């Protein structure tokens, strides 16, 4: 739905999303939690913009403010040049939201009926809606499930159905909140491919995506904001963010299981950041080191711990390394109390 008074170049030049000192505090009787703390953001039209952060970073709160489900406590947010607090009724014609793992609809409806129902809330003609639904279902490989009850869909099929629901009304800006969470590799790839195709089809379309999958952010997003504790800690393209760890030496170290070493390794001079994950009965440490010389100190600590080294390799920086350096911990890692 492009307003006829606005030309395409003008439309492309104005920001799709802009936030100014956006702040949101959740207030309860016992406590107040600052979910967003002064977010300044500008997303250009035609971009796939990722918001990356650990659980509780404020990603979903940001999306909920932008889609008019929540009011900001202070600051301003504009979507498609409309104030989310004041112009929310007009804005709702222009946006759509799809959340990962959402359980919308009614079990006794069939897939095609479910999507049709939501399209009617936007005033779409049934004929146009059915044609778009069939086209999108075919593209996402969901045609066979068109007449299946929603309650009988697998989680991958369900998420594809949700994405089609978001696309069928042809929004200008699509908000995706963890769209591939808990999906298998194939279904997640289909979802990403369709999102990319949808944006490329029309340069005025924009996608705002929250995720905590690094490879998804790296593969799909034109630009990213890394959010932690309600603040943006870094913004840029995936390559520019990786650039931040270009000077570091990145080492993957596999050790046999044993006592906690992470805290000790993080204290070593020259260890910029460190994370650990358990894989196949071993601890896999990712270490960002200031230079090669630091490795000697690291191996000294390992030797003192009695753990055995199963593997050691240097590798190129990834987005995850940049994230760890900026946030101070891995995506899946619980924050220290």
């Amino acid at each position, binding site marked *: *739905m492009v307003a006829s008074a606005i030309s395409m170049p003008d439309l492309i030049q104005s920001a799709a999303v802009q936030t100014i000192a956006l702040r949101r505090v*959740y*207030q309860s009787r016992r406590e107040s939690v600052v979910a967003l703390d002064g977010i300044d953001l500008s997303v250009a039209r035609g971009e796939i913009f990722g918001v990356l952060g650990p659980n509780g970073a404020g990603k979903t709160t940001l999306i*909920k403010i932008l*889609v*008019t*489900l*929540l*009011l900001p406590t202070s600051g301003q947010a504009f979507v498609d040049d409309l104030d989310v607090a004041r112009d929310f*009724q007009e804005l*709702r*014609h222009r*946006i*759509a*939201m799809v*959340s990962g793992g*959402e*359980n*919308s*609809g*009614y079990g*006794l*409806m069939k897939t095609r*009926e479910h999507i*049709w*129902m*939501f399209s*009617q*809330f*936007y*005033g*779409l003609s049934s004929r146009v809606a059915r044609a778009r639904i069939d086209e999108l279902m075919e593209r996402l490989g969901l045609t066979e499930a068109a007449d299946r009850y929603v309650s009988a869909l697998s989680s991958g099929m369900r998420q594809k159905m949700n994405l089609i*629901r978001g696309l069928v009304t*042809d929004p200008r800006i699509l908000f995706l909140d963890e769209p591939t969470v808990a999906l298998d590799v194939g279904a997640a790839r289909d979802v990403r491919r369709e999102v990319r195709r949808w944006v490329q089809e029309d340069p005025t379309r924009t996608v705002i995506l929250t995720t905590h999958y690094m490879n998804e952010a790296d593969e799909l997003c034109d630009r990213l904001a890394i959010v932690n504790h309600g603040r943006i800690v870094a913004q840029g393209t995936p390559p520019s963010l990786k650039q931040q760890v270009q000077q570091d030496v990145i080492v993957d170290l596999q050790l046999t299981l044993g006592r906690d070493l992470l805290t000790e390794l993080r204290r070593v001079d020259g260890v910029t950041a460190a994370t650990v994950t358990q894989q196949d009965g071993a601890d896999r440490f990712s270490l960002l080191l200031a230079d090669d010389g630091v490795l000697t100190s690291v191996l000294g600590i390992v030797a003192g711990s009695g753990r055995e080294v199963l593997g050691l390799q240097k590798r190129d920086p990834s987005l995850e390394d940049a994230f760890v350096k900026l946030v101070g911990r891995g995506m899946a890692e619980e924050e220290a109390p």
Partner: protein
Amino acid sequence: MSRPSALRIFVKTVIARAYPRTVGHARNWSWVVIEIVLPLIGTVAMVYVYRALRAPAEYTGFVVLGGTLLAFWQNIVFDMAGNFIWERGGSNLELFTVAPTTFTAILLGMALGGIFYTAQRAAAVLLVTSLLFQVHYRPAGIAPAVGLLALTLLALYALGMLLASLFLFFGRSAWHALDGMQEPVYFLSGFYFPVHSLGAYVAGAASIIPLTLGLDAIRQVLLPGTPVFLAPAWEAGLIALQIPAYLLSAQWALRMMERLARRDARLSMRWV
């Protein structure tokens, strides 16, 4: 593409939201037991209670009409107003909110979708119990009774929208409050006895629920010997006043509750 008008979105929303309830009934026949057989047993049981107590014969008619209209009250409380809680649990409420439609249209769709089985339940209770207990109605009262029923339902569904605004904001707390109020409402509305028995003050206060007035008026026009609380014409007039009052209040309350819910994050926190 031109923007669809608000009226078009309203009408399409009503039809679309009514659709799952309508097709749901055709796809799952368990509602016949839950919505028809069980309420029928409840009404029959109440008739036998009165008979065992040797109540006057006209009480059978009071119970039958009460049992018939009870279906509509339960429809607005549980299937319309209270349904917002379940819609929030399944994340539908978020999607309704971010769509350019209105809660009024969504609620109307829910009500129309639900009226299909509610009407069948009401008809089943009325027909089966009337035949079983040989209730005699005044033939001249049938047409006015239908008019009174239509008027009562309009007021009742407007009240349902007003109650829905409470569910939008208070969620499960409103559910518990309304659930706890069911028996007092059944009592005060005179579902199983003429509201006249409660005395003028209590019956007057209970008239805030359109069903109290509607049921009393319908009983008066259909059943000879119904004690008069207010003349049916007065009751019809009061119900007619309740319709715009509840509709306007519902519009205002839904808008205000949505604003408060957006402020306090109650549209998306599922179990508040």
